């Protein structure tokens, strides 16, 4: 009887173990790679990596990897992309920072059966000409600039801020298509209101950037709007204008500063009245949604029929408190406060 019980128990355990193995084997394992230009030198990386962690929690059979460049160069980004392709992932998410440079490796990957989702920056060429990726998930960089410009003009109409005479779009990367598109959107909005718009390459080194911007503002005294295409450079612009006595806070006189991003610097700048507005391009979704679409494509063969816009969403003094709560939830209070450089 004792022996019979032992045999039965062993058989039961073995059967349970085998059935678990069978279930695990039924579920396919996937590896998706995000090849990004947003490196550890950019606080926005946290949005992407944290949302990918959430995705992995929902889909334990998917392993996601985030690789990125720090000292940004298109060549370095292409090299990373080629390395990622050579490892044979089940899907790739990548920003199309340069259509020409990315075309070769991405077409090769797509031809080899690796689905690609563009995120953050799309291939801006028409449908038939662009890289045949599955879909684009991200903001619209042109709309980012345009909507922010239009928002500023609405505030001008309301008599809250001065009419723009000259706008400088301060960019830290002269080769970044997305940043150029932001400036182009701002240009189209502001030129309709009769303002002159200049694009200024300030670089990413803080002291050099401040010096460059100060030189521009001194030489072009009719400039009364500064649009920084990165959130972290907005305090530099505000500081330079403040030092020059140009009254950069949001009011009916002086210089008005606009920026981008849903990071602590941008949001707290709006809350403090230093920045008129910033925008969210839905960074959290940009990490999560490409992985979801790659998964649905691999698992069920689904393919979206259009791009998926995650932004722009205007962040102004009316909704900045809610955004601060949301961002604190992702970054944590300590990191949020540390990153507030105002």
């Amino acid at each position: 009887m004792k022996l019979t019980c032992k045999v039965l128990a062993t058989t039961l355990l073995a059967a349970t173990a085998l059935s678990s193995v069978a279930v695990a084997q039924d579920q396919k394992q996937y590896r998706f790679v995000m090849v990004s230009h947003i490196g550890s030198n950019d606080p926005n990386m946290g949005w992407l990596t944290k949302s990918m962690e959430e995705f992995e929690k929902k889909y334990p059979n998917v392993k996601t990897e985030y690789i990125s460049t720090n000292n940004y160069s298109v060549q370095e980004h292409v090299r990373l992309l080629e390395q990622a392709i050579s490892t044979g992932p089940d899907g790739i998410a990548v920003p199309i920072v340069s259509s020409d440079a990315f075309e070769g490796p991405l077409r090769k990957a797509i031809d080899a059966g690796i689905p690609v989702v563009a995120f953050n920056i799309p291939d801006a060429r028409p449908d038939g000409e662009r890289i045949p990726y599955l879909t684009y998930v991200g903001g619209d960089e042109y709309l980012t600039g345009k909507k922010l410009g239009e928002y500023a003009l609405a505030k001008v109409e309301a008599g809250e801020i001065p009419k723009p005479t000259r706008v400088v779009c301060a960019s830290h990367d002269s080769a970044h298509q997305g940043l150029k598109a932001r400036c182009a959107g701002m240009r189209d909005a502001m030129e309709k209101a009769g303002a002159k718009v200049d694009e200024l390459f300030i670089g990413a080194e803080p002291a050099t950037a401040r010096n460059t911007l100060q030189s521009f503002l001194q030489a072009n005294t009719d400039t009364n709007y500064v649009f920084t295409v990165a959130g972290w450079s907005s305090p530099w612009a505000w500081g330079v204008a403040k030092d020059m006595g140009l009254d950069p806070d949001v009011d009916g006189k002086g210089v008005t500063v606009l920026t981008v991003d849903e990071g602590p610097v941008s949001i707290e700048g709006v809350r403090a009245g230093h920045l008129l507005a910033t925008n969210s391009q839905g960074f959290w979704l940009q990490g999560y949604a490409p992985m979801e679409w790659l998964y649905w494509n691999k698992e069920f063969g689904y393919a979206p029929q259009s791009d998926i816009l995650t932004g722009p969403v205007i962040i102004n003094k009316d909704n900045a408190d809610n955004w601060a709560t949301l961002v604190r939830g992702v970054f944590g209070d300590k990191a949020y406060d540390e990153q507030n450089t105002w």
Partner: protein
Amino acid sequence: MTVKQLTHTQGLGAIIGVVIMLAAFTMIDVSGWWTRQTIANVVQFTAILGFVAMGQALVIMCKEIDLSVGSVYGLTGVAFITLEPTLGVPGSLLAALVIAALAGLVQAIAVVKGQLPSMIVTLGGLFTARGIIYVWTGGSVHNFSEDARNHPVTRLLGGELFGIEAAIFWLIAVGLALNLLLWVTPFGNQLLATGGSKESAESRGVRSNRVKVTAFVLCALLAGFAGVLTLCDRPQTHVTLGELMELEAISAAVIGGCLLTGGRGSLVGAVLGAFIVVSFRYELIALGAPSSWYITFVGVVLIVAVIFNQLLARRLGHSV
């Protein structure tokens, strides 16, 4: 200074360069250039770059080069801000400068003891220090607390004193001290002798390895101090702090009369070289040229300066 002394000044090329540049800017943009704001802007940034350029000049004079200064500038600045909550402002200042000095010392030892080319060692230093900044900050920007901003040390090093940027006073003070070190103490002769001919210098009892180590440590300290000054003025770190500054510093030192073959150079020249580099950035923007042209102009000015300095040195009978 007599005419004879002037012609023997190592930075004579830079002095002539500044005079020509100012004359040209006056002719093309008199109302834009000669304003208090413009000069204050240019001089303020010249002060920061001037520190890094003086350090670079010291290293170049002893026939070496330091490509890591931009990263050391950034690392020191990041250390100063991020250590402050634990160590307080004076403590974090000291710790940051110790980090800078250590960076110089480690690289110097690798160069003199390891018999390695300084270009390779400091290139490694550039990447190492930049990588440490990435890891240390996690890509985030950091800020000084209100108390730290108002601390007497922060106010003494940053902001303005008597309506003039504090960095300018510090440049004058440190520049005077270094010039005394170079021209009054035996260290100056030893430095130039080491750069001119190491073997010959050693045959006369100069401990050239020790001289080189001192030059590297001073160079790193000056870069670090420039980083601290910048952050006392604007206490916000950023991972790109000091990026490409090494190239501007080398350009400034060379424009200022330092020969990459060693043995010749001037600290005043290096500061004037920094003034030329920064002035060109301002004037190009003022004239409406895209700011991305600036780097091209620095390249052109650099080549012209090297040719001009060599011609000048030959004409004055100096070996080049």
